[in-house]
């Protein structure tokens, strides 16, 4: 019997797990995919939203602000990439000023410091490539950036260091209350626990509705993106939003923490929460909207396109806490769409503490604070590189040319407490294959290292777990020409 089972190893599930690591209890995370950070947490804008947009008084606003305040310190403790370049919300119509003023008022009410409305000259001085047709912008100096999968993986490691168990490839099918316990039914068998936390992202609504008297409706909302290479100089330093619409924050242009440029997302309500395909129409829409902010936008340096699904709950707010109308011991975080990444540390802290209080868990006497991830070789100074190579000669072997990722780093990605088990897992942790050739050169070497480190046969190394093996088998005898 577990004390706690967390369903879903996205950024929210991992943040809850990390918080529960502060307590003495048996905690397990069940994840349907082969790795943590495989849903919305891997495919989003990576923005630390300052909180000017959320409706004052909602959980969304409160947790957004709280999460944004926690983020910098958390990232520094975990060694996760973070930056605070600020943002501009651009308005291209003279008549948009009241909408910007309304945003400014919300920002003030939510307690976002430093926001102000600026005019064209100041906008172009900050970001010269913005469409000169711009009239006004809300300048949001507190807007930041975070590496979303790096954060999720690091939270998982921090949790695992404190005894939280992660079990992948385990899809939860149902929840039932039995006696004083919860039974989590999965495709790998049943697991009993005293408290269950539903952080199943786009799948969370279905589990909720099995046990709650109050039905929710999760609408999968797909967002398609272009990711561009980190060419120098980067076109923009700040995140550029357009005025938000009822469907969300609209299409943005943003640098990433690694100096790439991101265009997107669309906001399409789709029936299948697993449908992360991109479409010609969606990508065209992104590009045409981006060109409003950035007329010279080109796809010439695009290195990939992708889409992510955010779990939009019909009511519009986050649903956080004990499951309403369910037997006790059931908790949930539902509808964690944008600014969910920003809010995740706050959700994790509150949820972890509620669950611990409910179970009367004692503080973990052997709590190990997180160790920051080591600096990436690509960002080291010459002297740091010299020392790194002396300490571990594997730093001398560059595996991924595009992102300058070394063998030492690939091996460590696999050896981490919640280590990579597939090619995409290595990519999310240390960026091998994340660059302009998209793994063309390094994929087979990464597969060899995965095989060496985990003991799985080379030919079974997969892109993202069961069913996604890269190879179909050894070659046979060639037929005669």
């Amino acid at each position, binding site marked *: 019997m577990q004390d706690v089972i967390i369903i879903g190893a996205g950024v929210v599930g991992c943040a809850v797990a990390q918080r529960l690591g502060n307590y003495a209890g048996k905690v397990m995370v069940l994840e349907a995919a082969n790795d943590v950070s495989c849903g919305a947490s891997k495919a989003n804008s990576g923005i630390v939203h300052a909180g000017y947009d959320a409706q004052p008084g909602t959980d969304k606003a409160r947790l957004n602000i709280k999460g944004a305040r926690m983020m910098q310190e958390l990232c520094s403790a975990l060694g996760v990439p973070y930056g605070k370049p600020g943002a501009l919300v651009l308005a291209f119509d003279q008549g948009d000023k009241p909408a910007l003023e309304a945003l400014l008022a919300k920002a003030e009410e939510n307690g976002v410091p430093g926001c102000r409305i600026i005019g064209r000259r100041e906008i172009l001085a900050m970001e010269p490539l913005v469409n000169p047709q711009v009239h006004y912008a809300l300048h949001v100096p507190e807007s930041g950036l975070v590496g979303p999968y790096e954060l999720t993986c690091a939270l998982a490691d921090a949790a695992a260091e404190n005894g939280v168990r992660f079990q992948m490839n385990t899809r939860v099918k149902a929840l039932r209350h039995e006696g004083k316990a919860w039974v989590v039914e999965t495709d790998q068998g049943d697991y009993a626990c005293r408290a269950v936390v539903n952080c199943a992202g786009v799948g969370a609504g279905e589990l909720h509705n099995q046990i709650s008297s109050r039905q929710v409706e999760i609408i999968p909302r797909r967002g398609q993106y272009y990711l561009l290479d980190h060419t120098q100089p980067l076109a923009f330093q700040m995140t550029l939003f357009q005025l938000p619409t009822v469907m969300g924050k609209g299409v943005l242009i943003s640098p990433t923490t690694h100096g790439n440029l991101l265009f997107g997302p669309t906001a399409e309500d789709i029936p299948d929460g697993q449908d*992360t395909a991109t479409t010609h129409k969606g990508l065209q829409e992104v590009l045409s909207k981006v060109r409003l902010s950035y007329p010279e936008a080109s796809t010439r340096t695009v290195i990939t396109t992708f889409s992510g699904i955010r779990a939009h709950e019909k009511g519009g707010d986050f649903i956080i806490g004990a499951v309403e109308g369910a037997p006790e011991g059931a908790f949930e975080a539902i509808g964690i769409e944008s600014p969910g990444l920003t809010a995740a540390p706050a959700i994790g802290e509150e949820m972890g503490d509620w669950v611990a209080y409910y179970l009367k868990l004692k503080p973990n006497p052997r709590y190990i604070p997180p160790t920051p991830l080591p600096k990436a070789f690509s960002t080291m100074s010459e002297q740091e590189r010299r020392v790194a190579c002396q300490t571990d000669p594997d730093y001398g072997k560059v595996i991924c040319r595009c992102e300058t990722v070394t063998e030492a780093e690939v091996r460590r990605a696999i050896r981490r407490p919640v280590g990579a088990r597939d090619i995409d897992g290595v990519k999310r942790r240390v960026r091998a294959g994340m660059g302009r050739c998209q793994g063309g050169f390094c994929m087979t070497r990464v597969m060899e290292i995965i095989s060496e480190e985990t003991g799985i046969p080379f030919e079974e190394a997969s892109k*993202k777990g069961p069913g996604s093996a890269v190879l179909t088998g050894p070659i046979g005898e060639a037929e005669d*020409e």
Partner: protein
Amino acid sequence: MSEQMKTIDLLIVGAGPAGLAAAIAAKRAGVMDLLVLEREEEPGGILNQCIHNGFGLHRFREELTGPEYAHRDIQEARDLGIDVRCGAMVLEVTADKVVSVVSREKGLETFKARAVILAMGCRERPRGALAIPGTRPAGVFSAGTAQKIVNMMGYMPGNEVVILGSGDIGLIMARRMTLQGAKVKACVELMPYSSGLNRNIVQCLDDYGIPLMLSHTVIDVQGKDRVKGVTIAQVGEDRLPIPGTEQDIPCDTLLLSVGLIPENELSLGAGVKLSDTTQGPVVDNRFETNVPGVFACGNVLHVHDLVDFVSQESALAGQAAARYLKGDDDKDASEVAVVDGPGVRGTVPQRLMIPKGEQTEGLDLMFRPDRVYNNCFLTLRAGEQVLLSQRRRIMTPGEMATAKLSPQMLEALKDHKELRLEISAQKQGA
């Protein structure tokens, strides 16, 4: 200068066919203090995975496999005592020719070179660069990655294959995978013509009954974990899919052979100016870039079809670097810009430096036509003066074309600022 920095006359980045040919030529021309740095564990570059034959026809008058071709240069470099260091990745080249390199054996090292030859080759365009819609499952490979998997590692990347793009590596892999028992269902090409060599279309597709679908493209990829199929469609003259022409093809593998990009990240770091057309450095007829003492050759300069010409060009770059190191460069050379006129793309070199005095040697200009031309005329024009207007039976973008400049033409060019190449239907008057 840092005490850990070593000095060297000539550093060559890359030990593929370009780097090796440049090194051999430089050494023969008297450069004694040179080092070739190679990131892979063996020299030879991409030739090592090209186990089919057809290499060396021009240079050696015989048909070699890729490894055999590479072996000749590797052996020659060895005989000449050239230091080729493998497993050594160059991280940075500065405009001052300070080169940092990392290797497992020696860790981080920095060199101060008097001259550098860039010979990093090229890479394949990935799926993302084309923004092909659909899911992102396992089973999408660039053709070169698939080639490495089959030829170097001994594994199959799939059983039922669709190939997008008809570049040479894709064509070669169509045959290779067929011979290994895979079913190659189609080779789909966006353009109305193939970008591959004609001999490869015949020997790799036609001979195996693999359909080449021109003016078609892949518009969707299906499958969550592994490719389950692709949708293709015909494209119009605007290269956009024509509604109603969609066809679903079940397959487990999509190979991409959609173009090669010179790998110039190091060049950019050194302040080398690149051409928008070739995506390689802008060079003069000595293969010197805008950064003095930094040369470029082979596929990092412009993507070739045949390794024979890579070797030829790179040997010239090696000789030029040797001359540069001796300091006997003609400072009073006349500078002539080489310009792509109608029908011509990516002429290399982009600049001629014609030395003072009598011209004794001619030189080759390399370029591609912008489409297929039959019975056309290639014209070289210096200002209003036509230097040459020569009939060409067929020109296609899949085969690099050459224009020979004779010593007399170079002499005549001294009085001009610009040389223009044009393709036209009619002979241009001389």
